[in-house]
């Protein structure tokens, strides 16, 4: 039993660190640490820097322009990026659609769409959830009716993260009405500029515009944009969801957030001493730190178990639940640390509030999403119950 990385893995980590030291600007890293919203250009710029080095598609096989890294290398890479304050890689094209195309797409679709994900030609959005289909995704009712060389799409998608930046959206649509729920669903690639598509922002409780809803009325989509077989899209949908849950523990992100929290708590006065020394606060902090240290090893154990490559199975549901709980708790502690200064909405520097914690409260509210999206934590418990416990 050996908890340490091999010399080769350590050398790899150093290479990643050296890359980050050169390519990641301190200003951008600061913005990420402070949980500020990034502009489209900033996100695309980081993608381009990674792509130039050949590291954008960390989990893709080499033949499609990926790195061919082992799961351990991927984990090291993701952790180092998070610790350095790198922006997160936008997952919709790279982590969601990419693997689906590789598995189910035609040769022409792979040749055309995959390079465009890498070079940033396309920004993809995810068209899964609907007003009537959340956790019960298969209840979706957006329809696509065949009309010659086209499908005609009608319906509505929602919770479309960063859809305002997207020029393309992959959608689950119902192509057969009278079939059993999971049957009769198809996987379509839709150009956002097609007539009949309207995107509206949904302003969330943190007053931010991250989320959208997308309306489709008589939107004509070429049949060539069908991925996999008609009415067999649920297979693609499920496959995509397993990828959505990789790196779900977010150990690197939580580690970085915890270091940030300690830095802030050391600056905040409490009874004339730094808040970090307050016994109650210290106890809350220690609990989540220990939880994270345990989770780091749990994450590595799951990685080691899938060392052959591919996505982890139901174990990733455990990592999703605990990972999001830890992340939410760290965020809650940062809000708590600010005391009365957690209340002002303005991100300007205020007398006592450390500038780098200005977004703590809105981020805390924004992070309620973590236990809701990607399959709510309750859905994950259902998966554990069925797949691991056999209940």
């Amino acid at each position, binding site marked *: 039993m050996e908890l340490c990385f091999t010399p080769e893995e350590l050398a790899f980590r150093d290479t990643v660190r050296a890359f980050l030291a050169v390519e990641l600007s301190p200003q951008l890293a600061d913005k990420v640490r402070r949980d500020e919203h990034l502009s489209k250009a900033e996100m695309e710029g980081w993608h381009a820097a990674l792509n130039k080095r050949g590291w954008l598609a960390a989990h893709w096989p080499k033949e499609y322009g990926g790195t061919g890294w082992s799961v351990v290398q991927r984990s090291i890479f993701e952790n180092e990026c998070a610790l350095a304050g790198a922006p997160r890689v936008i997952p919709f094209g790279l982590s969601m659609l990419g693997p689906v195309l590789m598995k189910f797409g035609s040769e022409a679709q792979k040749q055309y769409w995959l390079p465009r994900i890498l070079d940033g030609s396309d920004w993809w959005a995810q068209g899964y959830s609907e007003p009537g289909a959340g956790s019960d995704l298969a209840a979706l009712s957006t329809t696509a009716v065949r009309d010659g060389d086209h499908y005609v799409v009608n319906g509505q998608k929602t919770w479309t993260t960063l859809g305002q930046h997207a020029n393309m959206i992959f959608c689950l649509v119902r192509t057969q009405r009278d079939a059993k729920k999971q049957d009769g669903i198809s996987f379509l690639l839709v150009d956002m500029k097609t007539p009949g598509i309207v995107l509206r922002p949904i302003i969330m409780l943190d007053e931010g515009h991250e989320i959208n809803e997308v309306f489709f009325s008589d939107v004509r989509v070429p049949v060539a944009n069908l991925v996999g077989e008609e009415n067999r899209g649920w297979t693609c949908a499920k496959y995509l969801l397993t990828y959505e849950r990789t790196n779900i523990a977010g150990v690197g992100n939580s580690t970085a957030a915890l270091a940030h929290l300690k830095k802030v708590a050391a600056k905040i006065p409490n009874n004339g001493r730094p808040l970090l020394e307050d016994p109650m606060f210290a106890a809350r902090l220690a609990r989540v730190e220990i939880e994270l240290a345990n989770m780091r*090893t749990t994450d*590595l154990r799951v990685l080691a178990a899938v060392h052959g490559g591919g996505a982890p199975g139901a174990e990733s549901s455990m990592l999703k639940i605990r990972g999001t709980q830890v992340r939410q708790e760290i965020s809650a502690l940062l809000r708590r640390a600010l005391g009365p200064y957690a209340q002002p909405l303005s991100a300007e520097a205020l007398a006592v509030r450390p500038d780098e914690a200005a977004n703590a409260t809105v981020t805390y509210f924004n992070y309620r999403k973590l236990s809701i999206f990607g399959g709510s934590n309750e859905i994950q418990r259902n998966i554990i119950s069925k797949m691991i416990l056999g209940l």
Partner: protein
Amino acid sequence: MNFELSEERKMLAESLSRFIELRYPFEVRNAIVKSPAGYSADLWREFAGLGIIGALFNPEHGGYGGAAADLAVVFEALGRGLVVEPFLGNAVLAGGAIARLGNASQKQIIAHIIDGSRVAAFAHGEPQARYEIARVATRAERAGDGWKLNGAKAVVQHAEGADLLVVSARTSGAVDAPDGICLFLVPAKTPGLALRGYPLVDGGRAADLTLRDVTLPAAALLGAQGEAFATIEEVVGRGIVALCAESLGAMSVAKEATLAYLRTRKQFGVPIGTFQALQHRMADMLIEIEQMRSAVINAVAALDGERGARERTLSAAKYSCGKIGTLVAEECIQLHGGIGMTWELPLSHYAKRLVMIDHQLGDEDYHLARYIALGRQ
């Protein structure tokens, strides 16, 4: 990175588990815990014959294991079997202290501990000390060439069954100072040593000790005068790894038993495991147990490291052990309902052991506070 056990340790775990299954079934165990000695001398020799005690000692001390991973493998299996034999106090704590501090003549005892012919108890905790390992009020004074001990020791596991006690006493320093603590070898029948034995909630026995002018020869002192603290901390650290692994084994069995019950027990015409309220509690418990396994792995990895990181990781593990062990015990009883509280069902005994482990070598709160304090040093 490799989470696989070595072939030797896999074999050790398998042979120990098989032995426990065959020779230490629940009925046998329950008879042993109610016996006057609180453990079985016969089975103890059989464990020794299997090499299990020797697996807890380094080769340099006459054993054939002794690494942190060996402790974890053995105690996880003991936890699964709910074994009450004196592995911890005798082999890990008392034996570990003798092995580390003893001179050539004193170390000869180790061979007898390993072959099962002698049993030692670790008499360190005191009525006023709670979980602090540096708080030693028992005094040792010079008496001619030898020593005279006065004081009291609390909840010494297997004290009545031991023929030798390793007793801590102070020769100098404040009552809670790490400096000035000594360990002495005290034969069981030494005049002035009085034992008040009692059964434990989770089975087996312990005793409170009174030492009144207990007179010992010079050769009774282990190591240099006043310098035993580092060794006490070291063997207690090994004890923490052992208890964490034991807890992991016990909670795994409790989880399996509860899962089996959820699949078979029917109410409202269906297995109760089909109810989402219970499924989600099981899912949460599973996550906690996986976190506990990681805590054990972290503790094993840290045990041979430098003191600061080592002790902090050990406290993190024992904190996790207390928190998760108690949760698993309470949840498993609740998920069983009334039957989970019966003496007849092994589960209730696992639950008791899981909670009582939190009361050995420092509980959840003690270790959380210690983790925080160590982080400031």
